[in-house]
C-alpha cells in the first residue's frame, strides 16, 4: 500500500510528509549539525594547545552523556540519580581490565567495554524492576542510594579498586602514549590523537543512535508515557517494559561513555568517575540545554565545562582582592555556591533550557504566521 501515491489529492498529513522529505537537505539545523561535527573533527588540527583539545573532547563526551540522561529524564520522565554511576562502571571496567587485572591488549579493551555494558545493563534492569513499578520518586531515591553505595564501595574495596588513589590503565596499540605515526596536516599522529578520533566517532555514533531511538515509534511511545502514563497503559502499551528499556538503554550508553572517558584521561578514581558531583553536573547540563531536546546537552556541556576551566583564575582573583578576610576569600573560592544558585535560577526561570526556549519561540512565531 503506497499511501504517498499520487492517487487523490494528498491529505494535509501526507502533504506535510512530502514537504518534510523534500526539505530534508534544506533544513538549517542539518548544516548546524554538520558544522558542529566538523568543528570537533578539526579541533586537533586547528587548536593550538592540548588543553583546548582536551576541553573539546570532554564537551563531546559529556554532551553525549547528557543526551543519554535526557533519554531517561527528558523523554521518559524518569528521574534517575544513578546515571553517573553507570558512567563510573564503564570507566572502572576499563581501569580494572587494562590497568589492574589484564594487560594493555585490544582483547582486554573489548572485554572492558563488554563488562561495563553488561554490568550496567544488568543493574539497570534490576533497579528498574524493583522501583519503576511503584512510583517515580522511589526511582530517584533508590538510584541515589545505589550511586552513593557504589562510591563507598569503590573507596572501601581498595585492594580491588585502588581506593582513593584509583587506577591508571595503559592502553594498547594505536591508543598507547608511545604510539606515533608521523605527521598529517602538520599534526603529530600519536596515541592521544588516535584516541581523540576514536572517542569522537563513538560519541557521534551514540548520538545518532539516540536520535533514532527517541524519534522511533518506541521513542514516541515513551513520550506518550511521560505525558499520561495511565492513558498509555490503557492503549495497551506495557508502560513498565518501555520505561525499563529506556532506562537500561540510557545506562548502557553511559557505561560506554565512561569507558571512553577512562581511555581519554587514562585514569580512574572514585572522585572522577563515581562522585555525586558528576551527576549534579550532568543534571545542570541537561537543564541548561533543555530537557527532552537531546541536543541541549551540547550547549549545557559547553557552557559548564568552559566555565570550569576558567574557574582556577577566579580563585586567584579572590586572594588578590580580599587579602584580609578569610570569609570573603572563601566566598570567591567556593564556585560550587554559584553553581547551586545558577542551578536554582535555571530551573525556575528557564525550565525548558536554551534549546527548549528557542524551539518554543520558533514554533510560536510559526503559529503567528
Amino acid at each position, binding site marked *: 500500500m503506497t499511501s504517498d501515491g499520487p492517487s487523490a489529492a494528498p491529505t494535509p498529513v501526507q502533504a506535510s510528509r512530502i514537504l518534510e522529505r523534500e526539505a530534508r537537505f534544506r533544513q538549517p539545523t542539518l548544516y548546524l549539525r554538520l558544522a558542529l561535527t566538523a568543528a570537533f573533527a578539526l579541533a586537533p588540527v586547528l587548536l593550538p594547545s592540548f588543553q583546548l583539545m582536551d576541553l573539546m573532547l570532554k564537551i563531546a563526551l559529556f554532551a553525549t552523556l547528557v543526551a543519554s540522561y535526557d533519554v531517561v529524564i527528558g523523554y521518559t520522565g524518569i528521574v534517575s540519580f544513578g546515571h553517573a554511576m553507570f558512567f563510573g562502571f564503564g570507566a572502572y571496567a576499563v581501569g580494572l581490565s587494562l590497568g589492574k587485572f589484564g594487560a594493555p591488549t585490544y582483547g582486554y579493551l573489548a572485554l572492558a567495554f563488554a563488562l561495563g555494558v553488561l554490568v550496567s545493563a544488568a543493574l539497570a534492569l534490576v533497579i528498574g524492576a524493583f522501583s519503576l513499578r*511503584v*512510583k517515580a520518586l522511589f526511582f*530517584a*531515591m*533508590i538510584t541515589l542510594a545505589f550511586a552513593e*553505595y557504589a562510591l563507598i564501595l569503590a573507596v572501601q574495596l581498595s585492594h580491588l579498586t585502588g581506593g582513593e588513589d584509583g587506577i591508571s590503565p595503559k592502553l594498547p596499540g594505536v591508543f598507547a602514549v608511545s604510539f606515533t605515526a608521523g605527521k598529517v596536516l602538520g599534526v603529530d599522529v600519536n596515541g592521544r590523537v588516535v584516541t581523540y578520533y576514536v572517542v569522537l566517532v563513538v560519541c557521534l555514533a551514540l548520538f545518532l543512535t539516540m536520535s533514532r531511538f527517541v524519534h522511533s515509534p518506541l521513542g514516541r511511545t515513551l513520550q506518550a508515557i511521560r505525558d499520561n502514563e495511565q492513558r498509555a497503559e490503557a492503549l495497551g502499551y506495557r508502560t513498565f517494559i518501555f520505561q525499563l528499556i529506556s532506562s537500561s538503554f540510557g545506562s548502557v550508553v553511559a557505561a560506554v561513555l565512561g569507558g571512553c572517558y577512562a581511555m581519554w584521561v587514562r585514569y580512574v578514581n572514585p572522585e572522577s568517575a563515581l562522585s555525586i558531583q558528576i551527576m549534579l553536573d550532568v543534571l545542570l547540563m541537561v537543564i541548561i540545554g533543555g530537557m527532552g531536546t537531546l541536543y541541549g546537552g551540547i550547549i549545557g556541556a559547553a557552557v559548564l565545562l568552559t566555565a570550569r576551566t576558567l574557574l582556577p583564575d577566579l580563585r586567584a582573583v579572590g586572594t588578590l582582592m580580599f587579602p584580609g578576610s578569610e570569609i570573603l576569600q*572563601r566566598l570567591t573560592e567556593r564556585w560550587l555556591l554559584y553553581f547551586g544558585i545558577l542551578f536554582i535560577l535555571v530551573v525556575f526561570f528557564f525550565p525548558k533550557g536554551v534549546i527548549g526556549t528557542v524551539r518554543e519561540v520558533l514554533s510560536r512565531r510559526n503559529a503567528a504566521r
Partner: protein
Amino acid sequence: MKIALPTLLLGLLLPLAFIEPRVYLTLTVAGLAMGMLIFLVASGLTLIFGLMDVLNFAHGALFSWGAYIGFSVVLALNQRLGWAESPSVGLNALLLLLAILAAMLVAAGLGMVLERVIVRPVYGKHMFQILITLGATIVMEELIRIVWGPNDQVVPIPLTFQGSWDIADVIVLRFPIVAIVLGVAVYLGILLLLKLTRVGLIVRAGVENGEMVQVMGHNIYRYFTAVFAAGSALAALGGLMWAVFSQSVRPAMGGEHLIFAFIVVIIGGLGSVTGSVIGALMVGLAYNYVAFLVPKAAIGVNMAIMVLILLLRPTGLFGAGK
C-alpha cells in the same frame, strides 16, 4: 503487615544463635540507639513527604546546618563557661538542650525561607521539587564551608553523656540512651499531631486539594510552611544528635546521612512514620549484628535489607503505593 512482626522478631532473635548473650545485649542497645538516630534523620523527611507530597532533598543540608549550629552553641558555651567540661549533670543537660533548641530554631527558620521562596512555586511537580531542593542543598552546603570552613571539626561532648554504664556486665553507652528516649518522644509526638489534631487534618486535606481548603477558610500556605519548618527542625535535631554521637562535624555529613534516611524511608514505605521507625530500627540493629559477626559485610547491609524488603513488598513495609 501480618508477616512483618514475626519476621522482625525472628530477625531480632536470630543473631542470638551466633553471639554470646551479653555481647548480644550490648549490640542490641547500640543498634536501637543507632536506629533511633537514623529515625530522627528520617522523621522530618517522612513528615514532609507524607503530608505535603514533597521529597525534600535539602533535608541533608538542613541536617548539616543543625549539626553546625548546635556545635557552635556547645563550643561557645564551653569556651566561655566550661559547661561541657563541668561535672554538673544539670549544666551538661542544659547545654545539650540549648544546643538542640538553637539548632532546631535556626533550621525551622531556614525551612520556612526554603518553603516560601523555592518550594512553594513547585508544589505538585515532583521533578522540579527534586531539582530545586537539590540546588538548595548545594547552596546551603557551600555556605557551611564558607562560614565554618571546609574541614572536619571536633565536637566537645558534655561529660555526663560520655562513657557508659555497666549494668550486670552489659555495657550501655550513655549518649545512645538519650537518643533512644528522644527518638521515642519524637515518634509519639508526630503520631499525635497527625492523628489527633485539626492541623494534621487540614494539612492532609490541603495535600489533596489546596484550593478547596482555602475556600473553606484555611490559609493552607501557613500550614504548609509550618509543616516544612517542623520537618526542617527535625532534620536539625537529627544532625545535632549525630554530631554529638560521632563527636565531629563535616560539611558533607548531611548528604551521607540523607542516603541512610532514604533507605529507611524506602524500607518503611514513603510517608509512613511508623514505617520509618521500624525501618530505622531494622537498619540499626542489622548493622550492629553484622558488623560484629562479619565486619566486612557491614557496609552492604543497609542496601541488602532495602533490596530484600522491596522484593517482598515493592511499596515498602507500610507504603500505600500508587
